[in-house]
């Protein structure tokens, strides 16, 4: 009962947020809808007992990625010029009818491919009874420190590289005087 309610609310939040990202014409609003959608995904994780994953989702997305996006929008905002450097009229940043048509075509094609892949999967796996949810933190920690230790270390190097790389890339370069 309670789990079903949580699941329904999270699913509505996720799908509604994603569709609102598609339809929103304002980048800032799209970012807020994305935040709602990510929170919905965290709720969906909770429904299947992935508690650590849900908390990670909250920490990384709400605290990190969305604020980064908002910062980038603010630092690059304010230029709504309709023409590009060569004086040619360009497509509006949030898309027009043509791009939307192409996008819906792409979405339909990928939907057909995915459904084609998924149908046999769903046929051979009739929904079984749910196993009760258990705490995952300890098992996840053990797995990360034993079986997946190499991937864990590599991801730490990746994060360090991303940190340094982002700082180096976005720093304004000084003119070189010799």
């Amino acid at each position: 009962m309670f789990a079903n309610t949580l699941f329904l609310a999270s699913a509505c939040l996720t799908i509604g947020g994603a569709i609102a990202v598609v339809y929103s014409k304002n980048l800032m609003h799209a970012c807020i809808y994305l935040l709602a959608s990510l929170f919905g995904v965290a709720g969906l994780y909770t429904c299947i007992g992935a508690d650590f994953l849900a908390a990670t989702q909250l920490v990384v997305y709400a605290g990190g990625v969305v604020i980064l996006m908002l910062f980038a929008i603010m630092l690059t905002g304010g230029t709504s010029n309709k023409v590009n450097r060569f004086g040619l009229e360009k497509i509006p940043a949030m898309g027009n009818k043509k791009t939307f048509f192409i996008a819906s075509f792409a979405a339909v094609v990928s939907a057909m491919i995915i459904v084609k892949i998924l149908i046999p999967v769903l046929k051979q796996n009739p929904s079984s009874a749910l196993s009760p949810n258990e705490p995952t933190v300890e098992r996840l920690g053990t797995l990360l420190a034993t079986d997946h230790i190499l991937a864990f270390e590599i991801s730490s190097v990746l994060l360090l590289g991303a940190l340094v790389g982002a700082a180096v890339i976005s720093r304004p370069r000084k003119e070189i005087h010799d």
Partner: protein
Amino acid sequence: MISLSSYLFISLVLFLCGIFVMVARKNIIAILLGIELILNASALNFAAYTKFLNNNLEGHIMSLFIIVIAAAEAAVGLGIVIRFFQLRESIHIDDASTLQN
């Protein structure tokens, strides 16, 4: 109600919305929003398969790594966007065509 098929459906919708946003938008940051949606869809899929197929938490690990990669991608991508804005005063994807032709 909580079943594999419903989770797959939700992740399908997320993925399609991500594809749609990626293709339709001409703003680089909006394209990054679409990429976030797609990465979330795949992470959700991994977690759902773990729960409904074998419950051995390998999928959770994959989801964690996907979240890590999403964070790194957002940081570097937005760094590139800000640098690009400093150079071109625009974040329109069609202005980033110097390497074309």
